């Protein structure tokens, strides 16, 4: 990615001694500006966390920014038990985990075929997938809704006996939709890998599967980690597919379920705050733990080799 920049040794920095005082003052201004903006960006989240820890009566009586008299996790407990959020979290995992794994597997093979095998029509394939990912979801929602209603599934796969109102529908759409992004990113990434390794493997008689699995895939580990983190966040955060393709409230992923929670607890905003924080927590944790991968995933898609 940064190969050209890395090969050029950085020129020795010219001394800026005379300009130092002005620069220091500039620095102070920059810090003031950045910390103000950071605080403004964090404020809504902090407020939600603060509200979720206090009883509603207290906020109502003393205002949002008063000092707390009682702090407790009661609302979290309530949101979790009364609304069955555990089940919704499980649904989200049941969608996102197979979704991410299958998407990465299928996309990496397509990317491998397009960028390393030089198959005929590779560029067309790449365009087909990439463009598909850029379409607004609403363009495909209607026919999919009809289609899923027509695909029968046995009872052990779906209680509704159709693909509609089953997690399969959501998983399938997630995979199909996200394939585009992953193929695009991985194809660009694989192009930066040295061809010589692959050619040596071919000389050694490696078949297509070995070229993919043993030669190319291990080199893609950083890109796969980055994409995996990003895809998990996206699939977990998705709102529309669950909303449209599931009618049984028990099957909803947690983001869509929050919508129901709101109806249930309309009067208590502090409870709603707890629900929102709970839903946001997994992605925030993933982000804080895997920040580097997450950001790499986004920028991999944006900066071409």
């Amino acid at each position: 990615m940064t190969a050209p920049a890395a090969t050029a040794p950085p020129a020795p920095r010219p001394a800026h001694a005379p300009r130092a005082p002005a620069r220091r003052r500039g620095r102070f201004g920059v810090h003031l500006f950045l910390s103000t903006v950071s605080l403004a960006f964090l404020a809504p989240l902090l407020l939600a966390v603060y509200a979720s820890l206090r009883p509603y009566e207290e906020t109502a009586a003393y205002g949002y920014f008063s000092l707390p008299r009682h702090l407790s996790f009661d609302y979290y407990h309530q949101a979790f038990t009364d609304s069955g959020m555990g089940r919704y979290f499980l649904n989200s995992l049941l969608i996102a985990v197979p979704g991410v794994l299958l998407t990465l597997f299928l996309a990496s093979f397509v990317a491998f075929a397009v960028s390393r095998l030089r198959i005929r029509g590779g560029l067309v394939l790449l365009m087909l997938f990439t463009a598909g990912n850029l379409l607004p979801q609403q363009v495909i929602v209607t026919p999919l809704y009809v289609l899923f209603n027509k695909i029968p599934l046995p009872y052990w796969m779906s209680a509704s006996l159709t693909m509609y109102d089953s997690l399969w529908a959501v998983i399938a759409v997630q995979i199909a939709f996200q394939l585009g992004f992953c193929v695009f990113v991985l194809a660009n990434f694989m192009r930066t890998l040295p061809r010589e390794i692959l050619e040596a493997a071919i000389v050694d008689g490696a078949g297509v599967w070995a070229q993919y699995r043993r030669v190319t895939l291990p080199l893609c580990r950083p890109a796969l980690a980055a994409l995996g983190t990003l895809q998990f966040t996206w699939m977990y955060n998705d709102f529309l597919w669950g909303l449209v393709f599931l009618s049984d409230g028990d099957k909803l992923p947690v983001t869509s379920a929050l919508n129901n929670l709101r109806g249930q607890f309309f009067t208590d905003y502090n409870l709603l705050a707890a629900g929102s924080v709970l839903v946001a927590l997994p992605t925030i944790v993933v982000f804080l733990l895997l920040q580097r991968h997450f950001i790499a995933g986004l920028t991999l898609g944006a900066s071409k080799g």
Partner: protein
Amino acid sequence: MPNTRARRAKRPGPRHHTRRDLAVLGVLLGIPILLDLALIWGPTLASVGLSFTTWDGIGAIHWAGLTNYDNLFTTYPQFWPAVRHNLLWLAALGLLAAPFGLLLAVLIDRGVRFSRFYQSTLYMPVVLSLAVVGFIAQLILSRDQGALNAVIGGRNPTDWLGNPGLNIWMVLLAACWRHTGYVMILYLAGLKSVDPGLKEAAALDGASERQAFFRIVLPTLRPVNVIVGVITVIESLRAFDIVYAINKGRNGLELLSVLVTDNIIGEAGRIGFGSAIAVVLLLVSLGFIVTYLVQELRGEERR
């Protein structure tokens, strides 16, 4: 150039795939292609087809010609407000959030202390689901229980999300909150790959920081600018979750995506009509997608 020619010369002649190779290729290319055609492109074409029919989703499908489009443009009261809101969305993300993200990236890239902290904080909203952003917006902006009115005080609380002249601006603020961090990260990555030698050379030639930025750095960021542009357009056409989480996209928060959803799910069942709205959305976005891909394709050929 000579490099690519040499590479091409090295390319082995017609490759002989064994039967097993062909089977692997067939299955592992076949499944994703099938998925993409069946669940993305097939439905896209079907949407176009359905838009010329009157269909309620159950009965027979009747050809309607351009009736749906005619109704959409002339009599459907929510259509033009929705278009206006989508355009406003584009303007807000493109003219406010994106330049602000660039500014933040440039400041952080200058190597200030705590830059990692700033970076993570500013980026935090991006990992939140848009639905969660919608709920948090409610916590702050709701008329009777919202935090903002609690701060302002006063006897007549403002209905930030209920007043149709006001709510779209509040929602745009929330959308910008998220988009700024996204853009910032993209520019930060782009700025890191700008050859520092270029900036040094400009400084030695006596260029001010501002001149160096606009004449040297910004032009080299062209690929990032293109990406940011594409993302901004796509995001503003796709906008849905925030308004739907707030009030199902009614009362001043209409968007094209909401109108599609309203017409196809729930009791309305106007699938033909909903598809016509989807096709309008499709045509607008295809214009941008094709432009972008053509550009990518040219880059591909240059390799």
